[in-house]
């Protein structure tokens, strides 16, 4: 069943009533959907809830597209330091970008979603609505669950609303990529290992950004001694420690396995 979500109530009810839910937008780097899961489309749950340019904070519904958000923020002299890589959907919704902690070209100077997400409103598999973090740019009260949900691929809770730290327009990264291309992997290493990685990749390189030491490529990634790679298709975890704690996290947050089944191979 495919459902368009346009309110928190609707989302809450849908989650309560469903046994298996897929809820992020299609993306080449996501795993293939399982046919038996209900599809929740959050893209109609969009729009800004609060904007505080003086505090550099925005509260926004998670279905909002990033380009739409940037346009709104720009009217207030603010923006997100998000610089999409080649082939990236420019108006990708937040729930997908944050769920995957999608890499981008401003990472080296402005960090990733993990640094920008200050707080979340999350719908749990039980339908319970919970909050974590706060609107304060500096906050150490309690566990930073929001950091854990960024990059959790929607497997631990459904991100419904986001509190984001914004950046003055003049402090945004000065990179622009217009090139559209197919990308099979995104890879990043330490700066010193970057030249040899690029050399090893040869023709596979679609874009090599030295500043962020990140490569967007086609075909197969090359071995690198340090760093990470994100490949299209099946997302599986090689690291034993990641796998162990992801399993534990899953057992705590979503013991019935309702959320984004098949999204992560544990």
């Amino acid at each position, binding site marked *: 069943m495919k459902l368009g979500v346009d309110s928190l109530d609707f989302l809450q009810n849908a989650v309560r009533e469903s046994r298996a839910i897929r809820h992020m937008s299609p993306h080449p780097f996501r795993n293939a959907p399982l046919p038996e899961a209900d599809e929740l489309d959050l893209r109609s749950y969009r729009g800004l809830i609060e904007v505080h340019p003086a*505090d550099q904070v925005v509260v926004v519904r998670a279905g909002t597209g990033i380009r739409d958000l940037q346009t709104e923020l720009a009217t207030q002299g603010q923006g997100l330091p998000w610089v999409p890589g080649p082939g990236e959907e420019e108006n990708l919704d937040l729930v997908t970008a944050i769920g995957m902690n999608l890499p981008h070209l401003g990472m080296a100077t402005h960090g990733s979603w993990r640094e920008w997400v200050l707080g979340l409103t999350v719908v749990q598999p039980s339908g319970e609505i919970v909050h974590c973090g706060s609107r*304060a740019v*500096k906050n150490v009260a309690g566990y930073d*669950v929001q950091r*854990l949900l960024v990059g959790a691929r929607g497997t631990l809770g459904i991100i419904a609303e986001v509190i984001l730290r914004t950046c003055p327009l003049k402090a945004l990264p000065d990179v622009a990529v217009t090139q559209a291309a197919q990308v099979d992997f995104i890879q990043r290493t330490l*700066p010193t290992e970057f030249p040899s990685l690029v050399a090893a990749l040869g023709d596979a390189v679609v874009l090599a950004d030295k500043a962020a030491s990140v490569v967007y490529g086609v075909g197969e990634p090359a071995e690198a001694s340090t*760093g990470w790679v994100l490949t299209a298709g099946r997302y599986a975890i090689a690291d034993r420690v990641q796998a162990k704690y992801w399993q534990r996290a899953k057992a705590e947050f979503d013991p019935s396995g309702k959320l984004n089944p098949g999204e992560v191979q544990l």
Partner: protein
Amino acid sequence: MDVERGWLAELMGFLRPDQVLTGAAARRGYDCDAYTVDRFPPVAIVLPESTAEVAEVVRWCNLRNVPFTARGAGTGLSGGSLPALGGIVISTKKLTQILEIDLPNRQMLAQTGIANKKLSDAVKAAGLHFAPDPSSQTVATLGGNIAENAGGPHTLKYGVTASHVVALTLVTPEGDVVQLGDRVPGGPGLDLAGLVIGSEGTLGIATEAWVTLTPLPNHVITALVAFGTVREATESVAEIIASGTIPAALEIMDRGILGALKAAFNLEYPVGTEALLLVECDGDSAELVKAEMATVDAICRSQNCLNLETAEDEVARQKLWTARKKGVGAMGRLAPSIVTHDGVIPRSKLPEMLDTVYEVASRHQIGVANIFHAGDGNLHPCFYFDDRDPDQVRRVVEAGEEIMRRCIELGGSITGEHGIGVEKLDLMGLMFSPADLEFQAQAKRIFNDGALCNPCKILPNQKSCVEHKSRWRGMAW
């Protein structure tokens, strides 16, 4: 006592005698950190010298069902290293080595018992530093910074500890040794290191960490601005941030602090000064830094500042920083006791929040001074009082809670850098609903589903803590 002797014999089976401290003096010496309201003595303190030894101690604690609490320099301000249920204190102070410096990649691997400042000292010649700079940085350890996700004046521009620690070695609450994070940040997957950083030592003991090193700016200008009202100073801060300028530091000190500084060091400021604003702009381009400072200058003048003094060379800049750095210490000379609160609000709410602080203090008839990270909206109201008078203590507690409630109402937080520890357990319920707290408890259980690793911290109403709490609550001098 026999149980205790048996324990010690077992611990000494894998540690040298000088790595195990016990006896009345040791138990007393480690019964609190820099937060002194709550105290409880451990049975023994161990001083492991390697990750393996830490793991061995933790496994032994699991085997014997003994609570354990990690401790660095003991400079925490919320009781994070208080051994709330007794047991063993695991000190990291023998883990003080820098293991690797990778200058080309601007990273460093260090053991977590090393003092924060030593990290910067080690790479100063290379023009780098470790950016988090809590006031206690000459002593506070890297491990403590990780546990509390420490901040400091310059985190406004450079970010808190979580932004500067990319990977760590963790001894889990069960005694396993795991590597979390990645030397190359921003990657896919669960941010396990991000969850552990700031978890106040409740998710295990970090023994080594890869930290990022930040280039020292080529150009720095510091300004100390005097204002005739606190509101003009706070309005200036809001305007500076709104202008899109992000200074390296934006700190405010009010008249209470200036009074203490005069009493302690005979420091004088222009007549009629009610607040001092310290602004630091830095960067690699002299022109950009100058332009930023010109913006600051114009804003402060439009807010009727009484005086604006700038400095560019190191000695003159340090002189301007004196008021900020010595302020809290100077408070020690005003009254026998001080409580430093730590609340956060969205920075645009600073003017009205400050009004609230003064109103609350005057209604409760307590002296208050403010010294704080204005750029982050991170307040530090310091109440000074006589702790020998129970009525004053009660008023201080009530006033503190009122201020915290207001921080939450304004969309802020009950702590920006000191942590919850045991100090703010009761306030967690004001900021988070029971369901929110259970959500956090789920995250905690990923690493720690027992009751041994730094028990009774962060989350209120933990099993076995509620009843025990009366034994450590308020055991001040």
